[in-house]
């Protein structure tokens, strides 16, 4: 940009890939970035990606990334004039946004009042229904131990945390006798994740697709709807794959979705970035789920099809800039897909796994983008989210994008821990996904615990392991193969080239 940077110094109150993502935007805008880190993250990638760094506390998120006093104090110490919360942690906490603003910094996100109004998903349901937007049938009041009758809602039903998000505090119930135990678990999970155990219930819409609309709004009353993302590939109500445009959305459905999203945004004085989530049933009807008043994990999908840098726009909007035609006339181009790389075992119910990343080889080439928060040697922490990276592809149309994703996955090698890459590699060859016909039940119904190993795969693996042991013999060297992370041959070569010059 030729003009002065919107801010001088910006604190990124997050970790992992999203912290790195925001820091990249800062660098491009000419803003100094400040990383915050817990003791577990002293050597993390996001600390190195920043211009400076401030310690905020011990490894436990409650005493570091989730501690409003710790984050605000560190932000003040750093001399920053703005703060970006990323997603998760304190990003949708109105009290946090208020504390940041009261400390004299700009908060890169919607106003505290907006966060408060829409952060309570139950209150948001009431607000949105009043604005004439269809909501999922269900309770408009909390579900309690004294009032657990869900006959009016109907079964199967879904228990949800009022303060929720990210699938936490969410439980499916199929019969009245399951309500009690599910309510207890949902409450506990909601309490642990959000500090608020309020739970409500909705009818489970099935089959359904999860489709969401990206919004950007500026301080001058301009609102942009930047198309939809289909996030129907989920496990535990958490997204694994997102794409834009949605294969299920016709121009008519799209127009209706954008109109509903505008109405939702109209219930508050909306500014900055947010996403309105809807369920889309088999007949093309949509129902409001919730509005996330922050940047989404999957924002990159929209960036690829619109050509806009959403994080950069968030920062510019927070500095008071007005959106022009660059945003309002952005025409979507081609098709984008994101595959989330999690340290989870898809062959064991997507159970989070611990350990250290050994080999870390990411794909590259035309139309491929990788947003990563780890690297070779990173030790994964049980305290934090198991998202390692996001692989994004962009191509002229959906078949080309699926093909590109397959190619990118084949270029990817991660050692040391099981990831969900095996699931993604299966998905790109799955007939239903290939045809764009799938819904939120795909993982449960078609994947389950994954296919059994074929005799060919067993033979290939066994032969490779035998060869590896033979290679290590006869000395049975103590240094084992692949056990320690080392730089790639390219990096070594590049360094040699540098020295030779």
């Amino acid at each position, binding site marked *: 940009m030729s003009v002065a940077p919107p801010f001088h110094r910006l604190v990124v109150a997050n970790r992992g890939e999203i912290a790195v993502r925001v820091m990249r935007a800062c660098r491009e805008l000419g803003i100094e970035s400040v990383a915050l880190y817990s003791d577990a993250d002293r050597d993390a990638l996001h600390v190195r990606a920043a211009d400076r760094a401030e310690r905020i506390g011990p490894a436990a998120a409650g005493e570091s990334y989730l501690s409003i006093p710790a984050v605000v104090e560190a932000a003040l110490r750093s001399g920053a004039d703005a703060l970006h919360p990323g997603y998760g942690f304190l990003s949708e906490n109105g009290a946090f946004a208020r504390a940041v603003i009261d400390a004299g910094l700009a908060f890169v996100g919607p106003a505290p009042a907006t966060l408060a109004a829409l952060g309570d998903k139950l209150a948001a349901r009431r607000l949105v229904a009043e604005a004439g937007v269809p909501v999922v049938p269900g309770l408009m009041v909390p579900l309690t131990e004294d009032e657990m009758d869900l006959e009016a809602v109907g079964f199967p039903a879904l228990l949800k945390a009022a303060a929720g998000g*990210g699938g*936490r505090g969410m439980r499916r119930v199929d019969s009245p006798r399951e309500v009690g135990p599910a309510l207890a*678990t949902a409450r*506990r*999970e909601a309490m*642990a994740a959000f500090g608020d155990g309020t739970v409500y219930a909705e009818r489970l819409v099935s089959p359904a697709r999860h489709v969401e609309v990206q919004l950007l709004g500026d301080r001058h009353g301009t609102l942009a709807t930047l198309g939809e993302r289909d996030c129907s590939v989920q496990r*535990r109500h958490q997204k694994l794959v997102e794409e834009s445009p949605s294969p299920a959305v016709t121009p008519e459905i799209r127009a209706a979705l954008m109109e509903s999203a505008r109405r939702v945004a109209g219930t508050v004085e909306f500014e900055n970035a947010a996403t309105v989530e809807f369920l889309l049933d088999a007949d093309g009807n949509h129902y409001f789920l919730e509005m996330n008043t922050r940047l989404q994990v999957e924002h990159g999908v929209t960036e690829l099809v619109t050509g806009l840098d959403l994080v950069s726009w968030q920062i510019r909007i927070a500095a008071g800039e007005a959106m022009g035609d660059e945003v309002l006339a952005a025409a979507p181009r081609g098709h984008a897909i994101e595959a989330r790389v999690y340290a989870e075992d898809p*062959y064991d119910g997507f*159970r*989070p*796994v*611990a350990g250290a990343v*050994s*080999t870390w080889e990411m794909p590259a080439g035309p139309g491929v983008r990788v947003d990563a928060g780890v690297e070779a040697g990173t030790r994964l922490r*049980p*305290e*934090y*989210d*198991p998202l390692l990276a996001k692989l994004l592809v962009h191509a002229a149309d959906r078949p080309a994008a699926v093909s590109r994703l397959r190619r990118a*996955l*084949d270029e990817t*090698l*991660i*050692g*040391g821990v*099981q*990831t*969900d*890459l*095996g*699931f*993604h*590699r299966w998905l790109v060859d799955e007939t239903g996904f290939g045809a764009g016909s799938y819904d939120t039940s795909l993982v449960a119904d078609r994947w389950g615990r*994954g296919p059994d*190993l074929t*005799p*060919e*795969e*067993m*033979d*290939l*693996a*066994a*032969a*490779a*392991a*035998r*060869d*590896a*042991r*033979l*290679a*290590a013999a006869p000395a*049975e060297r103590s240094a*084992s*193969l*692949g*056990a320690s992370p*080392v730089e790639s*041959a390219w990096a070594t070569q590049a360094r040699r080239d540098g020295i030779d010059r």
Partner: protein
Amino acid sequence: MSTFELRVGGRQVDPMEASELAWLDRRRGIARLADGTIALVEGSGSEWTVTLRGRRIAVQVLTARERILAVAESGEAAHAGPLDITATLPGLIVAVEVSPGDEVQAGTPLVTIEAMKMQNEVRAPRAGTVGGIAVEAGQTVATGALLLRLESPAAR
């Protein structure tokens, strides 16, 4: 000449002797397999992990001596005696769902561990009677930590 016995998921496999495997980066264990796939081979001694199309496959490569030891061990494990339930992931114990003396069926939730912000239920792998419980809610555990002991089901 290899005299190794190869096991995948406890099953003995016997791939062709002449594998068309090409090492691309021996130090990191990166190889091109016979079908053209790039795989990652990690491990040492008899325990190896081959990452094939994103899936980690555990392979045992056993010498004759290791084979004899493995047979002896599996014989001991086959007894339906007490079973120690351990944490498969590190995290915070948020709830202990059973008490000593409880009769449980396979699949009964025993302990809930919170890790990476998710609540993970540890379930009974088989029927039995809950013996000693080694943890309590609020405690942090490491991978492999003893959670509780499952005794043989009470005779009826």
